[in-house]
């Protein structure tokens, strides 16, 4: 799962394309706030920005590359914000 500032949408999609990740599920307008820094994204008057979220199921060997790319994206502009979380898929149909 990659949670990112809306403003990063284009870059995240580009990243997935480059990595050859075809499938994903995209959630628009999700809220959140960071534990270590990271401005809240609540879509309110005080915190007007919003996040989006992509859940993509990839093979285990692609995970490190994906995480590295996310880190690169975060380095590109830290204030905008992007985070990735990895967990296992038990089963799928």
């Amino acid at each position: 799962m990659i949670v990112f500032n809306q403003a990063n949408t284009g870059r995240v999609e580009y990243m997935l394309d480059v990595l050859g990740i075809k499938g994903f599920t995209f959630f628009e307008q999700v809220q959140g706030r960071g534990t270590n820094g990271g401005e809240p994204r609540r879509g309110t008057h005080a915190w007007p920005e919003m996040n989006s979220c992509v859940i993509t199921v990839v093979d285990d060997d692609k995970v490190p590359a994906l995480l590295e790319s996310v880190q690169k994206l975060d380095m590109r502009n830290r204030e905008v914000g992007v985070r990735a979380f990895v967990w296992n898929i038990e089963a799928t149909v």
Partner: protein
Amino acid sequence: MAIYKSAIEKPVTTVLIFVAVIVIGVFSFLRLPIDQFPEMDPPYITVMTTYPGAAASEMETNVTKIMENALTSVDHLKHITSQSKDNISVVTLELEWGSNMDEAVNDVRSFVDMAANNLPDNCAKPVIFKLSTSSMPICQYSITADETYAGLDKILNDEVVPQLNHIDGIGNISLSGAPDRYVYVNIDQQKLDAYGITLEQVGQVVTANNLNLSSGTIKMPQEQYQMQVRSEYIESSEIENLMVTMTPQGQQVFIRDIATVKDTIKDLSLDEKTNGREAVRLIIAKQTGANTVQVCRDVRKELAQIQKQLPTDVKIEKIYDSSENIQNSINSLEESVLYALLFVVLVVLFFLGKWRATIIIGVTIPIALIVAFIYLGVADSSLNIISLCSLTIAIGMVVDDAIVVLENITRHVERGEDPHEAAIYATNEVWVSVIATTLVLVAVFVPLTMLSGFAGIMFHELGWIVTVVCCTSTLVAITLTPMLCSKLLKAKQVHVDEQGNLVDDEAGKRSLYERTVVRMLDKIDDVYARSLGWCLRHKTITLLILLALFGASLMPVFMGKIGTDFMQEQDNGRLSVTIKLQRGTRIEETLKTARKLEARFVALVPEIQLINTSAGSNDDATIAALFSSTMNNKIQMTIRLPKKWERDRDIWTIAEILRQEMAAYPEINEYQCAVSSGGPGGGNTVDLEIYGYDFDKTSQMAEQCRQLISQLPGARDVNISREDDRPDIKITVDKEKASRLGLSSATISTYLRNRVAGMACGYLKDDGSEYDIVVRLNEEDRNSISDVLNLSIPTAMGKTVKLSEVAEVGEYWAPPTIERKARQRIVTVKATPYNTTLGELAEAIQTQVVPQLDIPVGYSTHIGGNYETQQDTFKDMILLFALIVLLVYITMASQFESLRMPGIIMFAVPFAFSGVIMALWLTHRSLDMIGALGLVLLVGIVVKNGIVLVDYINLMRERGYELNEAIQMSGRSRLRPVLMTAFTTILGMVPMAVSSGEGAEMWQPLGIVVIGGLTVSTFLTLYIVPVLYGVMSRHGDRDKQEALRKKFIFMQLKVKDKEPKADTEKSKA
């Protein structure tokens, strides 16, 4: 999809939509007529009734009163005034400005019809006139000639007027003072008596020899011919050789023996002179709805053409041309608009320091303004002073929304986002609040469109234009601005170096702008933040100081330094002088005075370009003569001066010089020297109205008032409306003696008329025109009372008697015109303020003159005139002000979802007033209607600054900053936007305030008021609003946390065991 997103995703459509808007706007702009004011119908209706033979007082009781009573129930009636003269009664209704005149006329007609049954039998049917703009002249020319003067009438009527009539939209063209050709047969009374003939016999001879008559048909063997006697005069000299009678001695008596025949121009009754030369005044009116500027321009062109065809000594000179003033005013306002645009763009460039950003902002201005032209086109309005003033006001405000959007997008881009995405998401964050601030402005300007009365006409358009422009600018700010940002803004220049590090290309590089302006602005931010910090620590002292400042700034008002006016008079370079000599003064004597004055005026005021003088009256009474009251003892002058920037002295100084000159002449009874303002509502006068029935008493009171008012330092041109009694010669026929001689009063009066005024004896035809032939006595036989007594009257027996044998001749005083207002007799004493304001003069009259009057029971006084209109308008304004304050409060309260925040922000408004007062005091201006409008506008503009600040403080507080820290941070961060929006508005108004163009006097107060109010309130808002915020919400936040703690008490529960008890407790909470 949200509107801004569509705009960004579809740049071509967005751009083309705005291009289309611009095209339509330019199209409307090109077709917009130019005018001085928005279209307005003067709300006057006049009902005129004639009742032959009735004296003024009979007229009053039998006609005027009946009409007045019937007409008082007309809808929207404001004042009813009337004049009753001998034979004629004129009732004038003044309705509320802006009433539907067609409806009103219908209304009046039905009331008049109802009342007509109660009028005396011999009364003519009342005539209803509607005073319309088309009855007022738009330009006047004087035509002078030397040798051809006698033939001028023919030239004008045959060549000039027909050519001018071709012009589109031209209305009535009238000539004043045109010389009429007349053939006079002046008979010597003694010779008539000696030959025993009567004047009528001579007249009959003259008439009988001047005819064309068909005398049947002559049939010849083959043909047939019409036969005609053609013996009309070809030349006037033929008359001399007619034989009148034969003496008993057989001597033939010809006309040349007893009379002189003069083929000349009509005797003087109305005299027109321009710069001392014989002149004819050409008065041109336009059709209703025609465009003044266009018609005047065409007239000018046409006259230049005509001039070439005229004899060389005929000169056409302009007396005045109202289009010139309009054109100049509009030009100077257009200039102000352009300067305002330039200033605003410069301010934006200064604060943003980026030309791309400046272009993006700058584009919104022309688009918003062009939409205003579309509105004007759709509303069938014109480019006028009001619409252009509105544009100037709007210019400073249209950029605000775009700036907010642009700023947020820039912030995102600087974080390293892609401009395209930044544009979408940054606009999303602010677009709601952008619309909300616009709503505040709409709350200020929409009520303007609901004003009634005179102010309604003036400000209706302003309200709509600013509303339309502001809404457009908001629309542009959330569509075109983000779209342009996504295309024009450049993403931050970065690259990745060999080690894979992100390198900011622009780091370390600092432009000149950053080194100078940004450093300076940073310093200002620092200073402000520090001073704000101090204020926050010393809230009480700060508030006390601010209150003291506020109190001190009100001092000029209490000291009476700020006067009030209705509207500023304009220096149009035109003066009208009206002079009244002793009643009954012979026209020739009046002219002598006029010539003397002309010479003195030119000597005293060498700037004078043209003096047009008319004196006397035209005896063929026309409707136009009803409105102008030139009499044989009155002189009316129009003086044209150069444009105000071409001379050193202003028009008021010059008027004062002329007044002092006129005061020195003993023969001048009353004089008035009025600065002709182009504006509606007439002159700038205070009228003291005295109501009461008895003539002598009210006249006496009026005279007393006049003397008292004249002693006031600021009063000039003090005049009484009631005319003095006019001396008439009254002939009383002794009926018994007359009837013994076979005469009646009727025949005697006809004979007298023939002898004095002349007997009309047909026409002399020349070149298609007819000229009157008049037979009358020599002037020296009829210019004294004894001459009149000595007139020979033919009797029925064929003899003659002297008038003295059948009648008595005496002098008596004709009663004056009876004026009434509100169904009471009235005398008005008018005064014009000089070096003081209308309000002050009215105040002085009210406090110093009225108490000194001895007002008997049943008599009353009232202050009217423009002062009354001003008071009404101010009352409207105060109401409007209250309405606007309430609406703005409601808008803000719903925006902040708080009743307290708007209160804090509104605290800036009184400080705007102190700024206004200081500005007026420093510039020695008075508060007039336009200035009062500025005050109303200030509410909206001032509040906007406060909103920006409070909104941000709220934001910081929500983000969890400490109160004082949040306030200080917000102050620091919002200082620039506040200064920027304030400066754009202030500098946008500067061209208006300093403009010296023609008509600038009128709108200068608006500029001064807004600049003064906004400057002071902006600086004080920066302190008062944060400090008040601090005072009012000191405990607020701590309480909020406490309240939350109390609300969610489940957290205070102690979990004792692992039973699911806690859960039930929790759900209870």
